[in-house]
């Protein structure tokens, strides 16, 4: 996903000399082609995320579009107040890009698990929150983020859901995408874990169950219409995210449904319920361990469908 991001960023930097790319000393193996072509539009600001976000705000106030990059929690939690007071309150064109959504860096330990970022950043007024599921969405989201004014959080990760865009499909921030049609139930997903939902939908299809799979790549502002339709038109809602149970995609979807007075036949959030993970493992291993993989999603879906 980060390759899709950097390749798109190179195109954007070529078109807009005021686009700047800052990193907090991370991105080895990714940033080099950008640096080679646009050395004056790149800056490694050092391991200093608070300064990076303040700096980004100052640059943005002077007319730059600034991408500020680091790993999950470093460019979000470490400098949360700079994001809130400096960037967001001033409507600055600061684009916070984190690599390592969910358990992307599962083996590196709890410091590198980004499992509360969506909830925390979603709470900040004015901030938009985007979590692409695959390379196409990541590239399209990068362009949309660059061209949309204001402060935006873009969450990248290691896992990549299979490409599935329709010919000529246009990506729009704030608009979800129906990846697969079906009315027996709907899986509303954010991030690469959409790939697990697709696998679960495949397995369910073998039993004759038709699943609507939706990518809600923009968690804020969220696509309320696509959620309401899914609740009204299908047999129930599962939300699927590689994120803690509190405050993320599932919470956002639940809020929409309650606000609209729409009651799906069932509603269940597939999310991390165990709190912090001290277990070591790859992204795939930890998904299975915490009941977030295709088999677990299928089991939950089957359980609800059998109750109806």
């Amino acid at each position, binding site marked *: 996903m980060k390759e899709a991001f950097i390749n798109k960023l190179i195109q954007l930097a070529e078109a807009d000399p005021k686009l700047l790319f800052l990193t907090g000393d991370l991105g080895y193996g990714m940033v080099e082609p950008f640096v080679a072509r646009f050395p004056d539009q790149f800056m490694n600001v050092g391991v200093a995320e*608070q*300064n990076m*976000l*303040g700096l980004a705000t*100052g*640059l943005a106030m*002077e007319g*730059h579009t600034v991408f500020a990059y680091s790993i999950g929690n470093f460019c979000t939690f470490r400098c949360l107040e700079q994001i809130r*007071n*400096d960037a967001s309150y001033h409507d600055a064109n600061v684009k916070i890009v984190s690599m390592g959504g969910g358990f992307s860096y599962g083996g590196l330990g709890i410091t590198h698990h980004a499992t509360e970022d969506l909830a925390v950043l979603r709470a900040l007024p004015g901030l938009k929150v985007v979590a692409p599921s695959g390379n196409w969405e990541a590239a399209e989201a990068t362009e949309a983020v660059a061209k949309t004014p204001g402060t935006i959080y873009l969450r990248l990760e290691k896992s990549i859901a299979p490409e599935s865009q329709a010919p000529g499909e246009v990506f729009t921030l704030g608009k979800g995408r129906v990846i697969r049609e079906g009315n027996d139930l709907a899986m509303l997903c954010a991030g690469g874990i959409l790939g697990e939902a697709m696998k679960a939908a495949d397995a369910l299809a073998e039993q004759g169950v038709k699943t609507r799979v939706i990518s809600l790549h923009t968690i804020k502002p969220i696509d309320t219409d696509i959620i309401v339709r899914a609740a009204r038109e299908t047999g129930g809602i599962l939300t699927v995210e590689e994120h803690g149970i509190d405050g993320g995609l599932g919470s956002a979807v639940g809020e929409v449904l309650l606000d609209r007075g729409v009651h799906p036949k069932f509603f269940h959030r597939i999310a991390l319920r165990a709190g912090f993970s001290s277990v070591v493992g790859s992204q795939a291993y930890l998904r299975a361990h915490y009941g977030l993989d295709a088999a677990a999603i299928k089991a939950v879906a089957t359980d609800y469908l059998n109750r109806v």
Partner: protein
Amino acid sequence: MMTVPDKHRPTTDLARSIRRHVIKMINRGSGAHVASCLSIADLMAVLYGKVMTYDATNPKWEERDRFILSKGHAGAIVYATLAECGFFPLERLDSHYMDGSEFSGHVSHKGIPGVELSTGSLGHGLSVGVGMALAAKKAKRSNRVFVILSDGECDEGSNWEAILFAAHHKLDNVVAIVDYNKLQSIGSIQETLALEPFADKWRAFGWHVEESDGHNHESLAKVLAAAPQIGGKPTVLLAHTTKGKGVSFMENNVKWHYYPPKGAEFEQALKELEG
């Protein structure tokens, strides 16, 4: 167009006016941080009355010098200064800290011409100022960025990230000014978190250091107008100030970090600040 409003007005007169506004504003709204405002009144008067280049009728003029109050709790004196220098009518100061007002105790930019950055949580302003300075270098503009920090604020580690960065990138268009009144929120700097040898710390980080009496207009104007003095190095001015300067009973008394002057104290403060 480039103006410093009323260049003939003595900065001492401007300083007296903004001190009086601050006393009235904080009394009226029962606000706080009156002593923190008085501490930098002379700095503000010299910056806006003599040193900085700006156009009050065009606050976003690209070539202007930028000013950031990183110690955002002294917002009242920024508002007072901007109003005195023609950015908006003086009457607007009456709403400071009142219900429904845009003039919050900690400085806010929304709806207030001339305020570059809203602050209030310490340790934010210098990084943003450094970003503005970097942008000026990239655009080959010659404007400077002045950032006033409090001494207690230098406890915040984020400042030292910005201090490292500005020196590494040779941002000589940044001028940090420390309101060095030796008092922080509930005690002295010395007993809370000692900063000395303070000048040496800045020097060790690669900055050019100036020191001045923070209430001597001639000395402040000389140092600030000359900045940047050393090409390739950001400048810091350690302005030795007295917290509460100008009102005898507020000077060097931490109580006035919080309390608004009321009744006889209010009358006495204004009396001491008469021309």
